[in-house]
């Protein structure tokens, strides 16, 4: 169990590199392991033949920032024939205090038949999309991809204002008017 006695501050020496593996919130410098955040230290052992991992549980969690390969939840703000602009709101389940800009380029929408993809048949402004970060992108935006079954639109509103339910991997139906709209749907996760 963790208690206040396990509290550490940045720069505090936690142990020797030969004793522990540096986990989150720690870093190794020369022969020693140091804490890099304020929090409670924890030692977790995965298997007997491996070294235990030293981690520091952050006290005041820092706002999440997108990393490569992270799964993000974002909202579409603009679409044009080449890409859809999105605001990244959640990174790996952790909310961002400030939205990060991202774009989903037309070639990153799906894995197959990339040349037949039409952005306006995949995303509409206001849709909530689950995507993966593929690159830190340019100065302005992160590059995202929805080229996987479980990635794509997870929530959307139809023209009539009803919420959309996925009926196939590229069609969604309005709950109010039963009108079918085209989207790159995410496979519902059980």
């Amino acid at each position, binding site marked *: 169990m963790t*208690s*206040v006695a396990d*509290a550490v*501050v*940045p*720069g*505090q*020496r936690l142990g020797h590199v030969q004793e522990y593996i540096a986990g989150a*919130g720690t*870093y190794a*410098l020369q022969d020693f392991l*140091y804490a*890099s*955040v*304020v*929090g*409670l230290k924890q030692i977790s052992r995965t298997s007997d033949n491996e070294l235990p991992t030293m981690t520091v549980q*952050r*006290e*005041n*969690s*820092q*706002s999440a*920032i997108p990393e490569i390969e992270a799964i993000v939840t974002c909202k579409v703000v603009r679409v044009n024939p080449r890409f859809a602009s999105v605001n990244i709101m959640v990174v790996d389940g952790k909310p961002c*205090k*400030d*939205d*990060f*800009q991202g774009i989903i380029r037309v070639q990153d929408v799906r894995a197959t038949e990339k040349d037949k993809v039409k952005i306006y048949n995949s995303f509409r402004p206001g849709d909530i999309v689950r995507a993966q970060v593929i690159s*830190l*992108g*340019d*100065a302005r935006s*992160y590059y995202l991809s929805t080229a996987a079954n479980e990635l794509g639109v997870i929530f959307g509103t139809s023209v009539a204002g009803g919420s959309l339910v996925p009926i196939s991997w590229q069609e969604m139906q309005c709950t109010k008017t039963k009108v079918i709209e085209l989207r790159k749907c995410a496979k519902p996760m059980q």
Partner: protein
Amino acid sequence: MDRKRVAGPELSVAPLIEYPVDHKRWTPQQEKRHDSKRQPEDMRPIYLKTGLIGQASGSAYIELEKTKLACGVYGPKPVKRIGQTFSGRGLLTCEIKFATFSCAKRRNQMRDPQEKELSQILTQALSPAIRLDLLPKSAIEVYITVLESDGLGSCFSAAITAASVALAHAGIEMLDLVAGCSASYIQTGPARSISSGAESIPPQIFMDADLEEEKYEQGSIVLAYMPSLNEVTHVLQSGKAEGSIISQSVEHCVEACNKIYAVMHHALLESVKENQTQL
């Protein structure tokens, strides 16, 4: 009526006078410090607390008797500045602002060159300690408001200390905390002169000099130091002093920084304790 400005109160009171009219001003020839209880190597007691600014990601307040300042850290957040090229490292920006009422003479609302310079130096002193490589395309903003300044050196060193505690409080990954310490070289005896030759006393090193002492200083030093890694992140030396005096004062500052580190350590543990009791 000018609505942009705060109108004065209807009732007026006499200004607070710091010293009585017949007060004898301190001079270094008295062989004592301005605060007679302090030895040359003594610092003022420090009060340090985290978490005073609710909307900031992290914050700290520091007080060394009459030097008082507050620090707020915002971020990491996306870089919004136009014309910024891609950067794999985080961007640290610091801003020191002296409140208009903080000094003996009223400060301007506008940012003056001195504030700009100190802000830049603060960025240089802090950035080696922050793991900016873990924060690509993000920005961290540090804002310091000086509420009362009792000596520029001590004020700036307190800013370094408070900023690094606020950064740690914000949960930003750092290599180590940075403690700041200042010292002034003050001639307490007759100064060395070429004509008289003999009778010369080297200047004394007064740690954490206050405003009265700073008026007599020949030079000063501000040291930013990472105590547990035993590394200096910044040295700001101004004025004239001999090499031996400077190296001696650096040693004194390192020693004092280790003491400050204990205070910083304690303040951060207090914040952990507070969070634990809230749970």
